[in-house]
């Protein structure tokens, strides 16, 4: 393990979190513009986090409440470690040789579940309702997501992310063009994962007072917000790797991830919210149907 790799390992979570938070800030800004507002500055989320970290008190309901955010970010950082971030001349592979796509699918859940556990211990019924909705929705979007990944794995006969990146050497070979069905299914799942507008019933602030984290405040909330940014980044990088041929350098990475990030954002801005079971069944209807078409095609 080269020293460079170790440095990246330490730096990448911070960079990732910063980029992710920035994206979310930009998304707030864009949303504001769409709504004919001025909107907060793009770095607003970072301010929020600093503020939260500098809160003077924090309450905890117990061990799991305390560990929930910690484990959540642990899961996210662990996921990051197994995603190849850059593939160009100065690659950032971290541990991605030691894991594959299936590992990623599962380790991504680690954080969510940990957060759900923390939320559970808060004892707030709203949190529990939020978790219930979140897990249900997760069950919904994982189906098209899994289909998309299976299409890729079967098509390239590999489950290694690096190999999939390698197969997309030119723009024309990007999976977004080669496996459009897979991409559509995956993007639909992505909407759900990001928790953007049509699928944000999990955090519905006015209804269940922001759902799972409703009992979290102060430093815990800060950690969770950081996690949110980092997680968004990780997912974006993964999608870039899978569908946009990875990234050779940071600029490409940022361009590609941002482009990807805009999709759920714009869909979210113009759409109202789904109910939980509507969301679940939505995922099982159109994205799944499209994914199945892709599956049939890849088998032929």
């Amino acid at each position, binding site marked *: 393990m080269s020293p460079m790799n170790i440095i990246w390992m330490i730096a990448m979570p911070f960079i990732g979190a910063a980029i992710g938070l920035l994206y979310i800030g930009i998304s707030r800004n864009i949303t504001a513009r769409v709504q004919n507002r001025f909107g907060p500055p793009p770095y607003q989320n970072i*301010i929020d986090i600093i503020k939260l970290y500098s809160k003077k008190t924090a309450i905890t309901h117990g061990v799991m409440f305390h560990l929930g955010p910690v484990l959540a970010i642990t899961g996210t950082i662990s996921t990051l470690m197994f995603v190849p971030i850059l593939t160009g001349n100065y690659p950032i592979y971290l541990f991605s040789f030691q894991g594959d796509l299936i590992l990623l699918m599962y380790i991504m859940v680690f954080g969510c579940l940990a957060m759900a556990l923390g939320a559970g211990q808060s004892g707030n019924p709203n949190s529990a309702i939020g978790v219930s909705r979140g897990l249900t929705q997760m069950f919904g979007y994982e189906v098209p997501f899994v289909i998309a990944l299976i299409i890729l794995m079967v098509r390239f006969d590999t489950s290694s992310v690096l190999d999939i990146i390698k197969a997309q050497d030119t723009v024309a070979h990007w999976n977004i063009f080669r496996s459009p069905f897979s991409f559509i299914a995956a993007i639909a799942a992505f909407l759900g994962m990001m928790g953007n507008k049509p699928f944000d019933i999990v955090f519905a602030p006015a209804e269940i007072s922001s759902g799972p984290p409703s009992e979290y405040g102060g430093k815990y909330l800060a950690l969770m917000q950081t996690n949110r940014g980092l997680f968004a980044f990780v997912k974006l990088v993964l999608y870039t790797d899978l569908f946009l041929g990875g990234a050779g350098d940071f600029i490409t990475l940022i361009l590609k991830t941002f482009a990807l990030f805009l999709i759920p954002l714009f869909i979210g801005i113009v759409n109202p919210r789904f109910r939980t079971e509507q969301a679940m069944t939505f995922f099982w209807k159109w994205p799944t149907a499209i994914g199945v078409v892709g599956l049939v095609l890849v088998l032929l």
Partner: protein
Amino acid sequence: MNDDLDRQNNNIIANWARKHSLWVLAYGTGCGAIEVPPTMTSRYDAERFGITGMATPRQADVLLITGYLAIKTLKRVIRTYEQMQAPKYVIGFGSCTINGGMYWDSYNTIKRLDDYIPVDIFINGCMPRPEGVIDGFIKLQERIARGQAKGWQHYQENLDWYRANQKKVIKNWTMPDYNW
């Protein structure tokens, strides 16, 4: 403990961040609640100052009391305030929170909110327009930046006084103790 708090109060970065990120828990009592949506939405767009609505007291920084408070409601307000994480600020909104306003002689409303929870900023008017509200927020931001918005500390230090006042109006006292 207090030294520590003071040190943090004067932390410039922290105060800057606090100032620019005010998460509001709008306690929509009375008629004032109607003025909050315009403040937040496109026309006045409070979000550009980092002011955002929050749903739970655990996450909020600012408690916005929008109007008169009946005794019954006061209980909830106190509870909500006590559940917020320090540093926390209270904005009294409209004349009812200042002196009872048009409910001055009502048998069942409180007159001066500051007697029960520490108010950092009062916004005058019946009702104050969104411009007034934003102005109040900016005043609060300035106080925060200067490290003057210390109502929560005041509440902690003079808890007995506040409790006495609260108990005076709230007859069946079942509140849990304020635990910090």
